[in-house]
C-alpha cells in the first residue's frame, strides 16, 4: 500500500516537514499542508503560471511537480518574496504601475518577474514579454505588467 512521505523542505528559509502522498501536487502541499495560500491554481496543467514558485532556485509550475520530487528541496513562494514589511522591488513596481488588477495571476507573475530579473537584470521589452509568456493574465493586456517589470529593473539597477 502506498504511504505518505515525511516531506522535509526549506520553505521561505524555514525548515518544515509535512506528511504528503508522493504523487500529491506540490501546489496542494503548499496550499493545504504548508498553509501558504498565496500560490494560486488557475488551470492545473502548467499553462497559466498562477502556481509558479521557486524550487531549488528554479521557477516551476507547482501544479506539475509531484511532492516526491520536492523532497529536501528549497522552496520559495510569494510569501517569501517581501522581506518582512519591505516589498521586493518587483512588488513595489507592480503596485506603482498598476501591474495587478484582479490579483489572481499576480503572485505567479511576481515570481516569474523576479526570476527574469535575476537572470536578465536589464531586460528589453521583448525579453520581458518572452520571460513572462508562461504566466497568463486576463485583466491587463500585459501592458502595465511589462511596465512594472521594466520599472523594477530600473529601480534595482539605479
Amino acid at each position, binding site marked *: 500500500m502506498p504511504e505518505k512521505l515525511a516531506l522535509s523542505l526549506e520553505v521561505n528559509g524555514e525548515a518544515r516537514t509535512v506528511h504528503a502522498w508522493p504523487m500529491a501536487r506540490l501546489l496542494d502541499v503548499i496550499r493545504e499542508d504548508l498553509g501558504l495560500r498565496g500560490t494560486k491554481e*488557475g488551470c492545473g*496543467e502548467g499553462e497559466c503560471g498562477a502556481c509558479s514558485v521557486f524550487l531549488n532556485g528554479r521557477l516551476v509550475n507547482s501544479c506539475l511537480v509531484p511532492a516526491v520530487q520536492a523532497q529536501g528541496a528549497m522552496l520559495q513562494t510569494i510569501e517569501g518574496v517581501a522581506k518582512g514589511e519591505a516589498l521586493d522591488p518587483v512588488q513595489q513596481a507592480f503596485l506603482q504601475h498598476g501591474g495587478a488588477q484582479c*490579483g489572481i495571476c499576480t503572485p505567479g507573475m511576481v515570481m516569474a518577474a523576479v526570476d527574469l530579473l535575476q537572470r536578465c537584470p536589464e531586460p528589453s521589452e521583448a525579453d520581458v514579454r518572452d520571460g513572462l509568456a508562461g504566466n*497568463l493574465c*486576463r485583466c491587463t493586456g500585459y501592458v502595465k*505588467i511589462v511596465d512594472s517589470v521594466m520599472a523594477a529593473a530600473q529601480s534595482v539597477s539605479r
Partner: protein
Amino acid sequence: MAGLTEVGRSRIRAEGRAKVTGAAVYTDDAPAPPGLLHGATVRSQVPRGRITGITFGEGIPWDEFVIVSAKDVPGVNRVAMIVEDQPFLAEDRVNHPEEAILLLAHEDRILLEKARAAVKVAIEAEPAVFTIEQSLAAETVVWGQDNVFKTIRIAKGDAGDAWATAAHVIEGTYGTGAQEQLYIEPHAVVARTTAEEGVTVWGSLQCPYYVHKALKHLFHEPDDRVRVIQMETGGGFGGKEDYPSLISGHAALLSMKAGGRPVKILYDREEDMAATTKRHPSKTRVKTAFDAEGRMLALEMEFLLDGGAYVTLSPVVLSRGAIHAAGPYRWPVVDLTAKALATNCPPHGAFRGFGAPQSLFAIERHLDVAAARMGMDPVELRRKNLLRIGDVMATGQVVKEAVDLPGIMDRALEALDYHGRRAAHAAHNASGDPVKKGVGFAVFMHGCGFTGGGEAYLASVAGVEGTAEGKVRVLAASTEIGQGTNTMFSQVVAEALRIPADLVEVQQPDTKLVPNSGPTVASRTCMVVGKLVQDAAIGLKQAVVQSGLLKEPYTAADFQAAVAAFVEARGSLKAYSQYSTPPHIVWSDETYRGDAYGTYAWACYAADVAVDTRTCEVAVNDFVALQEVGRVINPTLAAGQIEGGVAQGIGWALWEKVEWREGRMANAQMTNYIMATSADLPRLRVLFEENPNPLGPSGAKGIGELPMDGPAPAILNAIQQALGTDAPTEIPLTPELLLDTLEAPHA
C-alpha cells in the same frame, strides 16, 4: 483642504498590497471551516432528452455521501432571473450537455471525484439544435413555440423609395463566435445552510444581490435569512454575473442536506470552461443604401444571437446589441429585427460588452466592405455620416452632448500614423513579400449603465458610514473584481469630501451590511453607483455640519475628529442615496423608443496588422485605442481597463475559438482554448479625451465594456486592406478560417 484633488490621480490600488504579497483572500484561500465538505456536480452529457434512471456504481461508500437531487429543493427549483425557466437541478429532462442533475458532497475530494464518475444517468436522447440557423428554422423546437427567447424591433424613419433609388445598395453577413471569459480564478463558493441562520454564501462573484434573490426563491426564505458575502474575486468579465446564483444554490442545497455542515464547490478549469456561460455567438445580416456621395440613406439589419438552452440574460444582451447595431451614425432610416434563439448548448451569458461587440462588429466591418465596393475611402465614408450633436439615433434618442466623433477618429488615426502607414504598406504589399500589411480602424460607442429603463427599475441604493476612527466607509454591493471599484470609490468620496483617500474605506460586499447598489455590470459601477456614493458622502458631511461638530472650510483632521465625535455621540453615522432617473431621460420598453442610455462613451480604435500568407497567421503590430470617457478618475486603473479589454477583443477576433461538439466545448483547457500571452500582443496604446458628463461623479462615464467593441472590426478591416479582399467576415478569424476564406471559390 483646498487644492486637494483625488480625482484624476493614479492612486495606488486600495487592495494592491494584499494582491502583490499573496495575502489577498480569495474564496479557496480562507481557512477551511470545521466539518467542511466538498461538493461536485453530476451533469447530463447529453444535449437534450428525458432522464430515465440514475445508477450509483459499485465500489463507492454511498452512505457516506450527501446526495441532492431536484426533489430536495425546498422552494422553487428555478434560477430567478428574467424568465424562470432554468432549473437548479434537472427534474425529468435535460436541455444541454452540462446540465446539473445530481449533487454530491464528501469530505474527501478524491473519493468525491471517483463517486462523480460512478454515477450513471440514463437519458433517452431527443433531437437537439446547435446553431443559430437550425434554431431559426425551427424544424426541431427545443424552447417555447418557435425557439425564440426574445424579439426586438427598432424602426426609425420611412424608407420611401430609398432602396429603389439609392446609388449603392450593399449587403453582407457577419458572424462572431462564442468566447470564454477565462477569468484566471475559476468559480468557487462556500455555503452554509442551517435552520437557525438560514443560508450564508461566500463566493467569487460579481453581483451579491443576484445570488441573494436566487437563494431566497430556491429556499423560500425571507430577505434577512439569506446572506451573500463576496470574497476577493479573481476576475469576472461578466462570467461571474449570473452563474454564481446557480453554483451558490448547489452548495447551499448540499449544506442543507448535510445538516448545516459547510460545503465548498470549486470548479476546475475544465468544468468551468465547459459548463459555465460564454459570449453569445451571433449572425448579422446587414443591408445598406448610400447615395452617390456615400451618404447613408437606409439600414436594414437582422441581428441573431445564440442564447443556449435557457433564457438567462439573453433578452438584455439582445437589447444592448440591438441598440448599438446602427453604430455611431446618422441613418435616416433604420429597420432592425433582433432575435435571441434557443439551442442545446449551455446558456450563453454576460461577457464584457454584452451584445454590443457582436452588432458593432457587423456594422463596422460592413462599412469597410461598403467603402471598398463603392470605391470610397473608409475614413471619408465615416466622416460624412458620423453622429453630431442634435442628430437622432436609431431609437429616436437625440444626441445632446458635444461629441466630436470626426475629431476622435482623426486623432486616433493620427496616433497610429494611419495615412502614412497605409501608403507604406501599399508599397510593401506590391513588392511580393509573402507578409502583407494593413491598417484598419473602427468608430463606435458604448452606452453607460443599464439599458433603457433598467436603472429606474433597479432603483439602486448606495451609502457611506462614519467609523469610530473618524473615517468614511463606503457601503455598496458593487464588487471589486479587478477593475478598481475600491480605489475609484475611495477617490470619488475623498474628492467629494475634500479629504485624503486614506480616510476612506470600502466595506467588503456583504448583503447583511451593504444596500443593494445593483449588479456589477454594464459599465455602471463608476458612473451610476459612483454618483450615488458621491451624493451619499455629501449627505454624510451635511449631517455632520448640521450637528455643529464640523464647520466649513475644514481640514482633514477637523473632518476626522468631527466624524469620530459624531459616531461617539450618536452611535452611528450613515447616509444613503437612491437612483432616480433624471427627468430628461425617457424610454419605452414597449416601442423601443427613447433615450436608450443616459450617455455613451465614444471611441475610435486603430490597428496595424501583418498577415503571413504562408501560414495565414495575423500579427497585430500596433494598436491605438482612443476614447472620450467623460472624466478619468484614476488614469492608471482606467488605462488598465482599456488595455485588458483590448486584449480580450484581439483574442476574440483572432484566436479564441470554442470548438463545439454536439453542444459541448471540446477544447475546455487553457492549452487548447487560446488566449494571448505577453508574447502575442504589442504594446497597446491608450489615449483618453475628457468631456465631463453631468451624470457621473466628477464627470466620469463608464468604461469597462467599451474596449471590447473596437478591436475585432478594426483588425478585420486592417486584414481587408492587407489582403485586398473583403472576404473575411467572421471571427475568430483563425489561420484555418482565413485559409478557407481565401481559398473559397468567390461568390
